[in-house]
Structure formats: C-alpha cells, structure tokens
C-alpha cells in the first residue's frame, strides 16, 4: 500500500469510515450514489496513487478521472446495495450475498487501515487543524475517546493497586469507579503537560508516519465474510434458514 494513505488526514479517515458504514442506509437515492462515489473516489485515489490526489489530478487529469470515475461508479453501486436488497427483486439471490459481503468486507478492510494508521493524538490534532473544529470540541472528543479506550485497563489497575494496600472491594465497586474517573481525569491532564513538553500543539501540522502492513487476515477475513453472507443468503432463499 502506498504511504500516502498513512499520511492522509486522520480525521477525514475516521469520518470516511463512518460515512462508508452509514451513508448507504441514509441515502438510498441518487444523492447517496453521488456521495458514496465521491468517498470511494477519494479512498481509491489515495490507495493507488503515490501522492496526494490533488497532485495526481494535476499531473494526469483525464486518465485519473476515467480510472477513479469507473472505480467510484462501480463501488457506489456496490455500496448502496443494502437498499438494492430491499427494493430490487429481479436479481438472483446469489448476488445479494456477494454485494452485501463486498460492502461489509470493504468496511472491515478500510476500518482496519484507519485504526492501524491513526493514533488518537493525530485524530485530535487533525480534527482541529483540518476540520477546523474548535479546540474545545476537538479536545472533548479526544478526551472521551481516550477515556473509553482506557477505562477497562484503568479499572483493573486501580483494583489491583488497592488490593496491594489491603483494600478489597470485590469485582465491581462504585468506589473504584470514582477513583478510576478521577485518575483518568488527572492522567489526561498530566498527558497534556507531557504532550506540550514534546512540542505538540495545534499550530503544528501533523502527518502520520505509520504505514499499513497487509497480513494474511486481510484475505482470510473478507473471504470469510463473503462466504458467510453468500451461504446465509442461499440458506434463507431456499427456506433452510428462518
């Protein structure tokens, strides 16, 4: 995979992922097709070009337009297929499974790429710099994500630490919950200081250095998804399931 995806704006990566999952359900219309086309166009342009899409377009506009346009059009058709499943009755059942599995598989691969190449810090920074969200909104969003991702580990850690001091409150306790919330608040504010001491602020344009490595699961899981959906659609259609 080209490095340019890793350097792609982290907030837009997350946003694209959310839109990929949600849009086909929201816009089963021409507007949905256009929107999903744009998104897919953007994703593929990043995946298959060495540079940012703007530079690529500048270099070879017509070829790019044709290639990405085709990819976008095909993909948008695939992406709006949850609706097709509901509204189109004249295609055979095997296609239903193929289309839906392509939709789910695509979301899985893209989601994995986003998670692997983006950290929360970059997400926060990017939301502020590139999406021009206010520092307050971007930071609140970042804090809540940090809180959610660390909550379980923090809870276990505090429980273990209190046990070392001879305090046992059982597996779940509101007392620990209170300590965890306070600790996380404190740690996040300590983190601010550390981040600041390492030169991190909203004036610094950030790029992402992490690259995506393709492993065997990138083939196994989408294949599994495709087979599962096709299998279940066949079973449903023949009346063996449900």
């Amino acid at each position, binding site marked *: 995979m080209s490095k340019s995806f890793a350097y792609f704006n982290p907030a837009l990566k997350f946003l694209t992922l959310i839109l990929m999952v949600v849009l086909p359900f929201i816009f089963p219309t021409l507007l949905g097709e256009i929107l999903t086309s744009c998104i897919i166009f953007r994703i593929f342009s990043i995946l298959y070009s060495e540079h940012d899409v703007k530079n690529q377009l500048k270099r070879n506009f017509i070829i790019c337009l044709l290639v990405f346009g085709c990819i976008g059009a095909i993909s948008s058709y695939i992406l709006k297929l949850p609706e097709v499943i509901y509204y189109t009755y004249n295609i055979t059942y095997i296609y239903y499974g193929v289309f839906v599995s392509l939709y789910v598989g695509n979301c899985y691969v893209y989601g994995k790429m986003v998670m692997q190449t983006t950290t929360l*810090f970059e997400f926060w920074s990017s939301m502020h710099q590139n999406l021009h969200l206010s520092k307050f909104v971007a930071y609140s969003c970042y804090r809540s994500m940090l809180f959610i991702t660390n909550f379980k580990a923090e809870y276990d850690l505090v429980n273990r630490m209190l046990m070392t001091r001879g305090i046992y409150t059982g597996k779940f306790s509101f007392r620990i919950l209170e300590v965890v919330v306070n600790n996380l608040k404190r740690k996040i504010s300590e983190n601010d200081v550390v981040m600041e001491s390492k030169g991190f602020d909203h004036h610094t344009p950030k790029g992402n250095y992490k690259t995506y490595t393709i492993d065997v699961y990138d083939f196994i899981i989408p294949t599994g998804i495709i087979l599962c959906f096709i299998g279940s659609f066949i079973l449903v259609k023949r009346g063996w399931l449900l």
Partner: protein
Amino acid sequence: MLLEINNLTFTYNNANSPVIKNLNYHANEGEIRIIAGSSGSGKSTLAYLMAGIYPGKFGSIDEGDIIYNNESIVGLLPYQRLTNVALMFQNSATSFCMRTLREELHFVLENLLLEEELIEKRIMEVIHSMHLASFIDMPLTEISEGQKQIAALASVLVIKPRVIILDEPFAHMDDVTADKMLVYIHKIRRKEKITFIVIDHLVERWLDVADDVSLLGKDGSFVVTGVTKGSYHVHEKHFYDQGVVVPYKHKPRVYHDRSASTIMRFENFVLLHKNKRDTLLDYIDYSIPKGSIIGIYGRSGVGKTTLLEAIAANSGYEGNIYVDSELWSNYKIKERIKKMSFVVQNTSDVFLRDRVLDEFVDAILLINPGMKIEECALKAIEELKKCHLEGYLRSNPYKLSIGQQRLLLLQIAFCSKHDIIIVDEPTYGQDYDTLTYIMKQIIALKEEGRTIIFTTHNMDVAREYSDIMLHYHDKRLEEVR
C-alpha cells in the same frame, strides 16, 4: 549566555509562600550543570519552569524571567520551545504519549516538522547508540521502570535541543546502566554542544563531568553554586546538611539466624515474563525466614518488580509458593491481602482520596474499623509528623513530589498489621535523611517480628540494611555473603 534566570520567584496556585524565591542561575553552551537538593526543595518545579511548562495554569511567576538566547521562554509556543529546551520527567511511567518507544520517537520528531527520512535517520542513530533494539517495539507498559527511564532519556536526546533538563534521570537504573548513560551524555555534550541541566541526589556520580554543581535549599533559593570537582570537598558539609550526600559505611555483613521459622518458601518457582512466553527466574527453591529483612539487588530490567508483583498478586509464575506452610494459591483474596502488603514503585494509581489526611484516615480505619474518625485523624497527623508530611494535610496526594508520594505510601504501610511487607524500591527519589528514616522504620517492623522484602538497584542500600541480600541476575537469585 544560553540560559539565564534572573531573580525568579514562583508560587503555586493556592499556596501561601513561593516555592522558588529570588533565584538566579545561568548556563552556557555545552555545559553539564547539576542541581541537587533535598526532597521537596523545589528541584522539579525549577526544572518545569526552565522547560517552560510552568507557570501555565499551575501557578504564577511573581518576579523575574527565564531567558534563552535573549528571548523569554514564557511567550514561546510548545514546538518553538522544544528547539531550545527539552525536559525528561522524573516519573517515567507518565512521560509518554505513544504505545511504543519507536512511535514516541516518531511523535516527538514529527512535532519538530522534520522530513520523514531525517526522522528515520535520527531514530536509527539513537537506537544504535543507546542499545534500544531489544525494547524499541515493545509496549511501554510492558518494559521495566529502568527501561522506561532509558526510553524517556532517548525521547529527549533524539530532539537535540540546545538545553536538555534531566529530572532524576538514573533513579530507576542500576549503577552499571547509569554509568553507561552518563558516558553517553558526556559524549553527546561534546559532539553536539548540548547543555545538560541535571537534577540528581547523587552528586558524586557527576563530579567528573560536571562544570557546575548547585545546591538548592529548602527555602527555594541556592545554598551554594559554582561547585566543581576541585572545590567539592570545601562545600561538602552543605551537601551533608541538606541530606543530599549518602555516607554509607559498609558495615560487615551479619548473617541472619536461619534457625528462625520459615514464613515463605518457593518450590520449583519459575517467574514468567509479562509476555507469558519468556521466563525471568528459573526453578528457584528458596526459604525466607520469619522476621527478616530481605534485600533483592539487581540490574534494571532483570525482573525485580515482576517478581514482587507475582508474589503479591499470586499470578505470573509457575511452581509453588508456601506462606506459613500453606500453599499461597489456597489463600482467598481477602486472606491474602490481610497477610501481605505491597508498596508499589509507581504511585500513579494508588491513592483514593483527594486529601493526604483523608487518605491516611481511610488507611487507619481499614486497620481499626471501630475507631472514631476524630481519633483516626489525630493518629494520622501524628504519623504524618513522623515523616515530615504534616504540612501537606490538605494537599492532594498527587500534588506531592514523587518522593513524598512514596513516603506517604510507605508510612501507610508501616502502620499496617501485615506479617509480610513487600516494598519495591523504597529509597528511589529520596534524600539521605528520608532514606535513613524509611530504613529505620523497616528495621522497627522487623523487630516486631514482621518480614520485609524489598528490591533495590542500589547495592549500598541492600548491603547496609538487609539481613539477607539476594543478587538477582541471569535468571537466578544468589545469596551474597
């Protein structure tokens, strides 16, 4: 002059008096300057001020200024400051933003807006020169405290700013590793002309390479400055008075009476690494006599903390541990925590309340459930007076210095009624007076018939205070005679 501090006075929010008072200081290019002082004298506060992190929202500069190259540090943005000055934090556990050291190094260098190729080059340089390859890609939560400190040092050195401030850089390292790092710092200073300002208790370690040693007094101003190797003996008394120099006498080792009954026995004990694949101790059979002080000495990263954690949590090992002839795994959790207390090295998660007094009262109530709150409070104040923390009754425990946090935790453990007390690095971050107090308390516990197991990377401490000194190396525990 590269750095100049003029008549600086700094007060924390909600504090009555300034921590730093009318302080003057300077540093030139390529110097190594040491700032020593007793626990709580404001050394770390001064480091934060010099790094531009304070005053921020934490307090106010009442008077004076900190100037780098004729420019005040207060007005600079974080990434602009970073080219001038970088700080290595005392608490290495909370000084990282990323998951692994490699990511952390990338993060720091990206903030300097360096090109990707240059980032890679600098990272490779630091990996090679600081021998980081063994843990560069490991999660930072899984490496030892000593390795964390090396990682923190690497993430500061990789920046190559004009001034680097190191706050207790070797506190978690063994002497061999610390000496290697010191040589490396000296080399960098000469090659890159970087100025190092080092906060450290152990002044003597730095005398050969330091251009200046200054001693910060408890009133927040310098007691003595401009001390060098040549003039150190003239000023040594000041360092003793402030409890900075540790006068170990190396008493001959007295062997513990092994006829005492055994409180803990290890049988075919194998200590597992946190990754569950590797082992840190192989097939140990060992007995610990009741009412003894066991000092475990070993280099950074050998697994001292993991060993204590495995004993306390009853997990992460294979084989058997017997406590009072009963299999440790047969003890229920509640019985276990009544039998053994563990004072951890990292204090970042152990406090429950937002005031030191409340924290102590809670601890006393746990030992004496029927005691009245007022009596508990009086007892808590009495205990806090013993360790000179009575001035912080209403402070948040996390606002104390790292050394004071550990002292508070130790004092709570000293009041407990556990038969076995495990202490991880009790002397870390403490000046000599506090160290002596802690070790005297440990001896007092022993005289009450309790067993204390402590780890340290300071061989002098282990030699001076333990009945049985165990050297932990090469996956073995060896008794030192």
